[in-house]
Structure formats: structure tokens, C-alpha cells
């Protein structure tokens, strides 16, 4: 009580600047800045390009850096405003900017509209509409999902928007947007003082706009009624609504604002870099880095972070020469900075009272016998198909050629990598957006152990790969184990991006001589797996072993501990579970699986490309598909097979001279956009596709009496339920009643089989109970 009174009297505006008193800057932040500075000095010393430092060149680089940094600031402040007001960290923020930049190009360059008209239409009309649409279609539904699902959903959105943008504006031509006022328009002197370089109006306006926006946003959030409402809604939606705020309107305003800011940033940056989705990808993580610099809530610090990144990248690309091995180093400034900032964040307190596990789908543990049976069926099917034993005229290995088998191999490699996500995300509730980085690391190790350019490789090295990958994963987990959900996601994304820019393109990692590194045929158990059919069997065997292993693991004390940790970290600690160690172990297991998967994936590919194979988006797609399949189910990995299966279906249909639109649809829409769409589907059905399939399938199995009973029960309950506001225009659902009972501490009701009824005298009953009683 007293606390509430105190803060309400405090001037609101000061909060932004007074967040972190200087004396209380945590040790981590100091250590990180020292580390960062040392790293920077080392890099400058090592890679100095030898250009003469003159006033003009230095001032020019600084000015451009400030301008670019201001653009990053627009993105990042939009991100922070949305996070502060809706509680959702929008991974798609950068992607929205990219999409709108292309839209602007379409109007301004392609259709010849006036620049200001195009700008106004995109930033003031279309972008806000996109924001509102996103809010209504997706974001509102995220409020009541698990934190992991919130992260995955906006990442899915990001992948989806980027893929759509790439499909609409294909990379067939160079798109360039001119600087506003023209390339040469600018001032060379201010108040008669000669600058020595030309200050472009475009950049001058960019910097001015960014500063004005940051001030405007701070004012909006802390000095206006609507800002107070925005901040209130994120704290307590219900309470804010009771005080006359309309939460849905407020969150739509926030999303509209955020998406306008992203659009403005995207449009203004377009002249600075060539307009293609790959180039603009870099923006995405830059905005995250800047926002994290401001701890996701401090607007002035966010702007400082953005300017810092702009200045650093500009000066690094001006003064340093990295050579071909580190040719992407200038782009790596943001991910490296993000990673350092994430590590430096203060340790998160074990939180109490945030148990969200009632949102989790009810889980039935797979029995090991079932897993073994399933895997055996799978392998038998592959045998039958690949040997052509069963031939319905559809499947003829000869007629199909080897292409389908090839892609099946690659897909199974990905499926193995996907398995690494199951214990980590599905059970322990930790997130890792860098599975492909671990897989690539595994492939790299195998190449080193088994020998480069060999025709056959000794498969037993795979075990060593797993053994080395495990501590590697643990190493990443040590900083990560102090953090929670969102920061872990950001850290792993930065790690993935850093690896794909700095590690894999290096010529001594994945040798690129003669068109990439070659992975020879694996030799194991006295067999050389040199045909595609045998190798496919080997991969399925490995997949089966890991799946069965995971099923055992989930039923072991470790599995229990991981799930317990996910349910309540605080309670885990109070029953003697070492929270950090447990996280480290699950990361190690996950990294080992990913590393092994990487070996098979690389061998299936036979060569890897240090630049393209490890694109961050490819790694995200793996995570998205596994989540779409049902992240707590070991078999979920197999879902990754769907992409090549669809792709082959298209090829086959084409050969058969089949309907063109279908081929087009499969190839152009379902394959590139599928993962994003499927993962977004999780918003509406968090249990995953495999769960639903299993629900349909399980009752058929003779030993699954429980499944048959459950279906019957659910059907009986479902009959009366309609969508609407809980308790107002539809009755409470059983799980909602349990939740309410918990919150209100009501226990006068018992749950008999088949439904709920009142237990004792009527006077303790609530309307909820009455409503529930009526429905069952």
C-alpha cells in the first residue's frame, strides 16, 4: 500500500533518466565495457588498413555513422515502445521495416509517385494499418500463451514477412532509392565555418528526426495520459480496464506506432544500402542490440546504443581491412555487441508466482516400447519404399531419379538437428535460436577429425563430435544460465549471427577450395554407406536411436528435473535442484544432438558452403518447424521432412504435366512460407501438429484405452463451449475454473470424473461454479 502511494506522487517524467543511478551500475556492465573496449583496441591494432587519418575522412565517417545510427535508433525505439506497452518483444520489427522500405520503393521508384506522397502513404497510412492488423490477428492472442510461444510467434512472423518480401520483390534487379533531395544536395559549411565535407540534407534530416522522435516518445510515454495508459496496460490489463482504459485500443495504438517507426527507419536507410532483403537483414539484429543496450526499456540508452553501433560499423569499415576470411566483420558489430550486452546483464532473480504451466498442453509420456515400435515401423517403411518392394506405380525409385532421396537425406539431417530442440525448449523451456550454429560446429569438427577431402570417413568420430559439442553447448549456457527467456533468445540469435558472419565463412573452417568442403561417405559397423538408400537407413537409424534415447531421458530423473525447472525455477531450487547446472546439462545434451545432426546433415549435403549454408534464417526455420510439430514430442523432428517432400511433390507434378498453379503454389508459397505459417499456427493451437495427429491416431492403437476415454470426455465437454469473453457471454471452461479456483483459493469443489459439480453447501458457490455446473 505504502509503496503504491509513494510512486504515484513521484513525477513521472524523471523515471526515464533516473532508472540507473551511476553508483549502482552493475559489475557485469563494467566488465563487459572493459572487455568490449579491449577487444576493439585489439581488432583496430590487428586489422588496421593503413589509411591516413585526416580530419575530413574522420569527420565524414563519424557523420555517416551518426546518420546510420539514427536510423537504427528509429527501429530500436519502436521496438522498445511496443515492448514497454504490450510486453511483447517483436522480433518482426526489422522485417516490418524491410517490407515497408520495399513498398516505398514500389510507389516512389517503380510507380513514380512523389517522394513525400509515397512517404506519407507508407508511414502514416499503410504501416499503422499493418500494426493494427498484426495486433488483432496475432499479438492479442499471444497474451495468454507461454513465454516461449510468444518468442517463437514473433520470430515466425519475422521469417514470414522477410520471405514474403523476397517473393514479391525478387532479387532479379538492383533496386536503389535515391537520397532525398538528391545524392549531391547538402551543405558544406555551417554559419560560415567550412566543414571540409558535404553534409547531406538526407542524413541531416535523419539525425534530426531520430532525436525528435526519441524526445517525442519519452514525452508521450511519461507525460501524456495515453502514455500512462499504455504503461498501465502492460502492468495489469484488467486493472487498467477497470480504470476506464480500453486495453485493446491502447495496444493497437502501440503496434501502429511501432510499425510506423520501423517503416520510417526502413525507408530512410534504403538510400544508404542497396535495397535487397539480405542487406536489410542486418538491420534486424542491430535494432535488437540497440534495444538491449537500453535494457529494453530505457529510450535514451537505446538511442545511445544505436548511435554506438552506427559509429562503430562506419569507423570499422572506413579504417580496417579484414581480408577475405573476415570479410563480413563490419556487419558483425551488432551481433557481437548484442552478445556482450546480454552476457553483461545482471543475474535474473528466481521468480516466484509466475507459474504459467497451466497453459501448457497436457502431456502423456511416450513409453519407450512405443518409441521403439514407432521407429521400427518408420525404418521398415523406408526399407520398403527405397527397395521398391511395394510399388503402387506411384513410387518407382528408377523413374523418380535420385533427387527425392537426396532431399530426403538432407531433410533427415535437419530432422536430427531439430531433435536437439526437444529437450531444451520442449522440456526445459529454454530457447536456442542457434541450432544450426551448433550443427555447423559439429560438421566442422567431423571434417577435422575424419579428414578433409576423404572419400570415406570413419563414422565412429561422430561420438567424439558429440563429446566435444556438449561442452561447447555448456559454454554458451554458462552466461545464458543466468538469464531468462527473452535475453536467452536474443543471445542465441546473436551467437548464430556471429557464427555465420565470422566463423563459418573463414577459409580454414569450411574450406571453400574447389567449390566447398566435401564430406565423404560414412563408414561404420563394417559397412560403407555409399549409396543413398543405405545412407538414408543409417540416418533413420541414428534418428531412431536419439528419439528412443530422448524418451528414456524424459522419464529419467534428468527429464523430470528439466520439466520441474520449466514449471517453477524457484521451487526447483528449494528442492535442491541446482538451477544453473541443470540448464547447463540440458544445453550440453542439446548441443551434442545438434552436432551429431550436423554431421549427418553435412554428409547428406556432401558439401557445405561457409556463407550460405549457415544463414540464420535456415536455423530459425528448424526451430519454427519443430515448434509447429509440437516441441515436447521427440518425434517432432521428423516434421522437417515436409519441406523437401513438398518440393519433390512439385517436381513430380511438373513432370506429370499437372496443374501449374498447384506446382506454383507448392514451390512459391508453401515451401518458403510454410515454416513461418505453421509456427504462427501455434498461436491458435499451442499443442502442435503432432499432438493433434496423435490424438486422432492414438485411439486406434489397441493399448490406448486412455486416449479413447479422453476423446469421449472432451467431446462431451466441448459441446456447449463457444468463443467469447470468459464468464460473460460463455461459460467458464474446466481449465479456467481450476485456474480461478487457484487464484481465489477456492477448494470447496472436487473434480469428479467427467466434470465438475458443487461439493458442499450452496453459500460458498460462485457464479463460476454455477456456470460450470450448467455445462457439464
Amino acid at each position, binding site marked *: 500500500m505504502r509503496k503504491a502511494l*509513494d510512486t504515484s506522487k513521484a513525477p513521472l517524467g524523471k523515471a526515464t533518466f533516473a532508472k540507473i543511478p551511476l553508483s549502482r551500475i552493475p559489475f557485469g556492465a563494467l566488465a563487459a565495457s572493459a572487455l568490449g573496449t579491449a577487444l576493439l583496441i585489439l581488432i583496430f591494432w590487428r586489422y588496421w588498413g593503413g589509411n591516413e587519418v585526416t580530419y575530413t575522412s574522420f569527420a565524414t565517417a563519424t557523420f555517416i555513422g551518426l546518420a546510420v545510427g539514427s536510423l537504427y535508433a528509429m527501429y530500436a525505439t519502436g521496438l522498445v515502445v511496443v515492448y514497454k506497452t504490450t510486453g511483447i518483444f517483436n522480433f518482426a520489427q526489422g522485417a516490418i521495416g524491410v517490407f515497408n522500405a520495399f513498398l516505398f520503393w514500389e510507389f516512389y521508384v517503380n510507380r513514380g509517385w512523389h517522394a513525400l506522397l509515397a512517404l506519407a502513404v507508407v508511414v502514416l497510412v499503410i504501416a499503422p494499418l499493418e500494426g493494427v492488423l498484426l495486433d488483432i490477428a496475432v499479438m492479442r492472442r499471444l497474451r495468454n500463451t507461454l513465454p516461449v510461444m510468444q518468442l517463437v510467434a514473433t520470430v515466425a512472423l519475422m521469417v514470414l514477412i522477410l520471405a514474403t518480401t523476397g517473393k514479391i520483390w525478387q532479387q532479379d534487379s538492383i533496386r536503389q532509392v535515391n537520397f532525398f533531395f538528391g545524392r549531391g544536395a547538402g551543405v558544406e559549411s555551417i554559419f560560415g565555418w567550412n566543414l571540409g565535407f558535404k553534409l547531406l540534407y538526407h542524413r541531416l534530416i535523419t539525425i534530426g528526426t531520430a532525436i525528435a522522435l526519441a524526445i517525442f516518445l519519452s514525452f508521450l510515454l511519461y507525460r501524456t495520459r495515453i502514455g500512462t495508459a499504455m504503461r498501465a496496460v502492460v502492468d495489469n490489463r484488467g486493472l487498467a480496464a477497470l480504470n476506464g482504459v480500453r486495453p485493446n485500443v491502447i495496444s493497437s495504438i502501440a503496434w501502429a506506432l511501432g510499425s510506423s517507426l520501423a517503416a520510417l527507419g526502413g525507408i530512410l536507410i534504403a538510400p544508404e544500402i542497396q535495397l535487397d532483403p539480405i542487406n536489410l537483414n542486418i538491420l534486424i539484429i542491430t535494432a535488437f542490440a540497440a534495444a538491449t543496450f537500453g535494457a529494453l526499456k530505457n529510450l535514451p540508452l537505446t538511442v545511445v546504443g544505436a548511435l554506438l553501433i552506427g559509429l562503430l560499423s562506419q569507423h570499422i569499415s572506413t579504417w580496417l581491412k579484414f581480408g577475405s576470411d573476415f570479410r563480413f566483420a563490419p556487419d558483425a558489430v551488432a551481433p557481437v555487441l548484442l552478445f556482450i550486452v546480454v552476457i553483461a546483464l545482471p543475474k535474473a532473480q528466481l521468480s516466484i*508466482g509466475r*507459474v504459467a504451466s497451466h497453459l501448457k498442453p497436457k502431456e502423456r509420456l511416450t513409453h519407450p516400447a512405443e518409441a521403439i515400435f514407432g521407429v521400427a515401423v518408420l525404418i521398415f517403411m523406408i526399407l520398403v519404399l527405397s527397395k521398391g518392394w511395394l510399388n503402387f506405380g506411384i513410387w518407382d525409385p528408377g523413374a523418380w531419379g535420385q533427387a527425392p532421396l537426396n532431399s530426403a537425406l538432407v531433410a533427415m539431417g535437419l530432422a536430427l538437428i531439430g531433435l536437439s530442440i526437444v529437450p531444451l525448449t520442449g522440456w526445459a523451456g529454454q530457447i536456442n535460436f542457434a541450432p544450426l550454429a551448433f550443427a555447423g560446429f559439429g560438421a566442422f569438427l567431423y571434417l577435422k577429425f575424419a579428414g578433409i577431402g576423404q572419400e570415406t570417413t570413419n563414422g565412429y568420430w561422430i561420438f567424439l563430435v558429440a563429446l566435444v559439442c556438449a561442452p561447447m553447448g555448456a559454454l554458451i549456457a554458462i552466461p545464458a544460465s543466468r538469464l531468462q527467456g527473452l535475453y536467452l533468445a536474443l543471445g542465441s540469435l546473436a551467437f548464430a549471427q556471429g557464427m555465420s558472419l565470422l566463423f563459418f565463412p573463414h577459409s580454414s573452417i569450411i574450406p571453400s577450395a574447389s567449390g566447398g568442403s566435401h564430406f565423404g561417405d560414412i563408414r561404420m559397423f563394417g559397412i560403407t554407406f555409399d549409396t543413398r538408400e543405405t545412407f538414408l537407413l543409417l540416418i533413420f537409424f541414428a534418428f531412431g536411436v536419439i528419439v528412443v534415447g530422448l524418451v528414456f531421458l524424459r522419464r529419467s530423473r534428468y527429464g523430470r528435473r528439466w520439466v*520441474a525447472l520449466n514449471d517453477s525455477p*524457484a*521451487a526447483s531450487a*528449494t528442492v*535442491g535442484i541446482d538451477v544453473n547446472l541443470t540448464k547447463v546439462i540440458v544445453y550440453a545434451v542439446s548441443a551434442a544432438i545438434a552436432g551429431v545432426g550436423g554431421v549427418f546433415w553435412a554428409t547428406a549435403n556432401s558439401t557445405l558452403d561457409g556463407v550460405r549454408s549457415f544463414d540464420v534464417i535456415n536455423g530459425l526455420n528448424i526451430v519454427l518447424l519443430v515448434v509447429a510439430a509440437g516441441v515436447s514430442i521427440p518425434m517432432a523432428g521428423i516434421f522437417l521432412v515436409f519441406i523437401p517432400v513438398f518440393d519433390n511433390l512439385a517436381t513430380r507434378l511438373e513432370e506429370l504435366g499437372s496443374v501449374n498453379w498447384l506446382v506454383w503454389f507448392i514451390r512459391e508459397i508453401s515451401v518458403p512460407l510454410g515454416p513461418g505459417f505453421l509456427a504462427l499456427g501455434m498461436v491458435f493451437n499451442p499443442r502442435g501438429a503432432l499432438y493433434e495427429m496423435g490424438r486422432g491416431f492414438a485411439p486406434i492403437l489397441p493399448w490406448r484405452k486412455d486416449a479413447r476415454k479422453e476423446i469421449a470426455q472432451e467431446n462431451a465437454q466441448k459441446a456447449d463451449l463457444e468463443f467469447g469473453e470468459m464468464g460473460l457471454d460463455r461459460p467458464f471452461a474446466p481449465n479456467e475454473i481450476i485456474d480461478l479456483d487457484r487464484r481465489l483459493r*477456492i*477448494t470447496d469443489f472436487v473434480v469428479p470424473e467427467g466434470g465438475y459439480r458443487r461439493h458442499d453447501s450452496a453459500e460458498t458457490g460462485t457464479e463460476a461454479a454455477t456456470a460450470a455446473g450448467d455445462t457439464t
Partner: protein
Amino acid sequence: MTAAPLLEVQNVAKRFGGVQALTDTNLQAEPDKITSLIGPNGAGKTTLFNIISGLLPATSGSVYFKGRRINNLSVTRRSRMGIARTFQKLEAFNSLSARDNIKVAAERRRRRDHHDHHNPNDITDELLEKASLSEVADITVGTLPTGTARLVELARALAMTPSLLLLDEPSSGLSEEETQAVAQLLKSIVSPDLGILLVEHDMSIVMSTSTEIYVLDFGLIIAQGEPEAIQNDPMVRAAYLGAN
């Protein structure tokens, strides 16, 4: 064996920003006894529990467990030393079954001595029996009613074979009969190896089970004594009834 008390809280204070949640708090708990901590809402009871179990750092003061200062030990270390607790707002492992909730703790339990060869499965079964949870053993805790889930949490804490059990309002959300059952259970489990520190609003439990009661109000211990003495204390009456 006598020297140090099981738990000793010495001059513990806690500030949250401008709020003084606890001021100079002193408290002791002994084995074979139920010590109760009562006080109005917001008095600082849960804060003190969080400080003892390590979820919150104290601003000043010391917490001694069996004579050892434990302020700087992690939650995990403290629980391994023998401090177990339950939570006011349920913190059960909702997606695990009742059995697995208890087993997780039994697998990490503190062994009393070298002769302790009890199998976690046996301990789990025994506790399921004791807390009359056998019937719901394989049901996911998230779908159990609050009262049952509280019992699961209590059984989970006991599976640690603790020396000190911190119970934060074990009767909240429980029906009258269930409350009485919990009171009986508490009385039956205290032993020379186990002391209980109880935070509770239900005075029937407090008065019938406790040997020593501390009264906390606005972060200060305002009274301490046996149940009869506390019941007649004018300060306590004032704190609870707001009378002067």
C-alpha cells in the same frame, strides 16, 4: 547437541526501495517444535521466509542454520543443508504428476547418515500414502484442485527429509476438514530431526499446534510467546483488530 538453535534469525532487515519490509527481526526455531509466525497481511512474513530460504537477500542482519551463517549460500545449497519450504502461492510442478513432483525432491534429498539407503521410489510411495495422495498419484498436478496440490507441495518438501520445514499458509485454499487433516499431519511429522516454522492465518491451526508464536506487524516483531500469552496480548489484539 544443544548449543546452536536449528534456525536463528538475527537482526534481519529488508528494504524494497523506499519500503521497509522488515526491521531488525529476531526469531528462533527449534527441532521437535512448531514455531508460528503470525501477523496481518503485508506484515513481512513471506519476505522473511524468502530471506531464510534464500530467494531474497537480506539488506542487513544474519540468518544462522544449525549455527552456521547461511546468508551467502544459494537457495539450492540451503535446501541441500535441510531447509525445505512451501509457497503461499502454489509453486507445484504443474506439468508433472503428483508422484513425479515428490520424486524430483526425493532424488535430491539430503541423506541423514550413511545408512540411509532408501530408494527415492520407496520414499515417494511412503509420502503419497502419508499425505493420502495415492489415488491421484499419476494425475498431472496442474489439473488437481488447490487443496490437493497443496498437499503435493507439502509432500514434496518432506521428500527432502529436511531438518527445518518452512510452511507458508498451508491451509490457505483448504476446506475445514482438509485444514484439520493438515494440522494433524503437521503434529505427526515434527520430530527431534524436524522443526517447523509456520506462517498461518488460520488461528485454529496456529493455536492448536504451536509451542511458540511470533507476531509480526509492519516489519517488526511485536510479541513472542506461548499461544495463551499471545492470545491475551493487547498489542497483538490491536494489530489484528485495529483497536487501540
